[in-house]
C-alpha cells in the first residue's frame, strides 16, 4: 500500500475526530514546520491537521527523523509552526508573544524528556521546586509529596548524579506534575531506561491518564505504544492519524 493510499484511507475516518473540536485540548490545522538548511529547506512537518481531546492518551510513532520531536516541541510551545494554526486549550499559539508563551507553557504543559534534563546542581526536591519557581510559589512540602507519589520520598535531598536513570526519570515526572498541567508531553520517556524502570514509568503514566491528564507520548517501543488509546504515525513529516477511539493499526509501507 502506497503512502498516498494510507492517507486517503485515514482521511475518510477523520470526521470522527474533527466533529468534536469543542473538546479538543490540542488542535492543528495545516501546520507546517520547515528548517532553513544549507541552501535548501528541510520540511520536518507537512500540513498536519488533527486534534487531541482532553483526557486522551496519544502515542506518536514513526522512524527516526520523521518529525516526532518537531511535532512534540510545537505542541509544547517550545517551537512555533512555520505555517498553519496551532491551538492549545483553544488559544492560538501564534497570537502570543514569547513571554506570554513562556507563561502559557508553565501553566499548561508538563514535559518528560528522554534525557531527564535535571539541573545537576539542584537536589531532587529542588529540581521539582524549580518548576514551581517559574510557575508561581515554591512549596517544599508539595514538591516532596510529588516525589513521594513517584516513589522517591526517601531520596528528596539527593543530587541527580546520585540517582539511577529510572529514579531521575521519576524526578522528571514529579517535576512535570507539580503544577498540575492539563497536558503531559513525553518525548521517548522510556528510551533510556531498562525494562524494570520502563514498567515503573508506564505505570506512572497509566496513573496520570486515569487521573484525567492528557498524555502525548513519543515512543519507538511498540509495547509502550499499545498503552495509548490512539496513535499518530509520522512518516517523512507527514501525519497519519487515527480517529479518536479508533483502532490502533500498524502502518504498512
Amino acid at each position, binding site marked *: 500500500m502506497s503512502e498516498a493510499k494510507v492517507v486517503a484511507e485515514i482521511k475518510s475516518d477523520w470526521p470522527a475526530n474533527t466533529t468534536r473540536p469543542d473538546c479538543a485540548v490540542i488542535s492543528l490545522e495545516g501546520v507546517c514546520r520547515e528548517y532553513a538548511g544549507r541552501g535548501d529547506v528541510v520540511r520536518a512537518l507537512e500540513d498536519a491537521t488533527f486534534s487531541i481531546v482532553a483526557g486522551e492518551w496519544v502515542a506518536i510513532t514513526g522512524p527516526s527523523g520523521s518529525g516526532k520531536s518537531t511535532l512534540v516541541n510545537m505542541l509544547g510551545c517550545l517551537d512555533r509552526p512555520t505555517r498553519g494554526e496551532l491551538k492549545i486549550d483553544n488559544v492560538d499559539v501564534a497570537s502570543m508573544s514569547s513571554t506570554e508563551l*513562556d507563561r502559557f*507553557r508553565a501553566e499548561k504543559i508538563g514535559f518528560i524528556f528522554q534525557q531527564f534534563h535535571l539541573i545537576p*546542581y539542584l537536589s531532587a526536591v529542588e529540581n521539582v521546586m524549580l518548576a514551581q519557581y517559574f510557575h508561581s510559589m515554591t512549596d517544599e512540602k508539595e514538591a516532596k509529596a510529588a516525589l513521594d507519589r513517584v516513589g522517591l520520598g526517601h531520596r528528596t535531598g539527593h543530587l541527580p548524579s546520585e540517582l539511577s536513570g529510572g529514579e531521575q526519570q521519576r524526578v522528571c515526572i514529579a517535576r512535570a506534575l507539580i503544577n498540575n498541567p492539563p497536558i503531559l508531553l513525553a518525548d521517548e520517556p522510556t528510551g533510556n531506561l531498562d525494562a524494570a524502570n520502563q514498567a515503573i514509568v508506564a505505570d506512572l503514566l497509566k496513573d496520570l491518564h486515569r487521573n484525567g491528564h492528557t498524555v502525548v507520548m513519543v515512543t519507538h517501543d511498540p509495547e509502550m505504544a499499545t498503552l495509548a488509546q490512539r496513535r499518530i504515525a509520522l512518516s517523512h513529516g507527514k501525519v497519519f492519524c487515527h480517529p479518536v477511539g479508533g483502532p490502533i493499526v500498524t502502518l504498512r509501507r
Partner: protein
Amino acid sequence: MSEPSTPGQYHPASKLSLVRILRRSLVHRRARSISALVALTVSAGVATALLTLYADLDNKLHKEFRSFGANIVVTATANAVLPPDTLSKVQQAAGPAALTAPFAYAVATTDTGTSVVVSGTDFAAVRRLNSWWQVSNWPDPSGQPSPALLGQRAANFIGDEHSVKLTFASKSVTLNGTGRLKTGGDEDSRIYMPLEAFTAWTGVTPSVIEVQISGGTAAIDTALAQLKQALPGVQVQPVRQLVEGESRIVDRTHALMYAALLLIALTVGVSVLATLSASVLERRRDFALMKALGGTQIHLMSIFLFEALILALAGVFVGFVIGSAAAFAISEINFHTATLPRLSVMPLVLLLNLAIALLAAFFPARVLRGLQPAALLKGE
C-alpha cells in the same frame, strides 16, 4: 534561608529562591566560579593598587614640585633696580598663597682679595620658597647679628667662617657664617646675608624677586598675566624649564597610569568574558530546560546577571584588600613611604568591575536570547 543540611533532610518551610539557586550553582560548579572570581579579583586588585599608588603619586609629585622653588621670576630691566614697592605689588598680584623672596646682588672682595657675589635676601622667605636648598644650619632670626649663609664653594676660600670680612666700595662688614649652603647651582659660590644689612652696607636694593605659585600650568599662566599687568616696566618671566618639565612629567605619569589601567581592564575583561561565556554556554541545556519549565527571558537573565554581579562584588572586596596591600608594599619598597589604603578609590574599582562583568555578560546574554530549547532538549 534554610536548606537541607544533609541529603534527605530538609526544613519544612524551605523555599527555592534565586539566592538558593545561585548558591547551589556557584558552590556546585566550584572550579568555574573560582576562575571567574579570580579574574574579577585580579581586575579589582590591580585597579585598586594602581589607583591608590596613582593618587599617592599625584600628591607626591605636586609636593615635590612645590618644593622645587620659584616658577616665576620678576627682574629689573638691564642695569636698573626694581622700584621699592615691587615686592608688595608682586605679593598682591600673585595672591596671598604665593611665596615670594627678594634678592639683591653685589660683588664684594674677601680679605684675601677674592671676588665673591654677595646676596641680600629674606632668610625666612627663602627658607620656605627654596625648601629644597641643603643648608647645614639656617640663621636664627633672633640670634647673633650679621648672620650669613656661605655657599659651599665660596666657603672654600674663606678662612674663618664665623668672621667673614668683606669689602664693597671701600666699606667693610664682618659676617658670622651660621651654616653652609649646597644646591649644586650658582648659589654654591655666593654668600647670603639679610637684605636690610646688605642694603645698609652696599646701598643696593633688590633686582630679582622669585615667586612660587602652587598648582598646575594654568595657575602659573594666570599669575604671570596678573603680574605683567600689575608691574609694567619690569620683566616677569616664567621659570620655563621647570614649569614645562613639571606638567610634562605629571601628564606623562597620568597617561601612563591610564594606559596601564585600560590595558589591564581590557585583558581582564577579555578573560572574564571568556570565563563567563563558557560558564553560560556549558549550561545552555540547563537554561533551555528552565525555558521549557516556563522561565522567561527575565528569569534566565536574572539568574545569570546576579551570578556575575555576586562574583564582581566579591572580586571587588577581595581585590581591594589585596590591591591595597600591594600598593603599600610597592611604595614601601620603591619610595620608602607608606601608602595607606584609600577607600576613595573603591567606587571607581566597583564601577570598573561592574562594567567588566556587564560587558562580559553581553555576549552570553545574546546567546541566551537566541536559545532554542527545542533544539537543545530533543531526544534520541
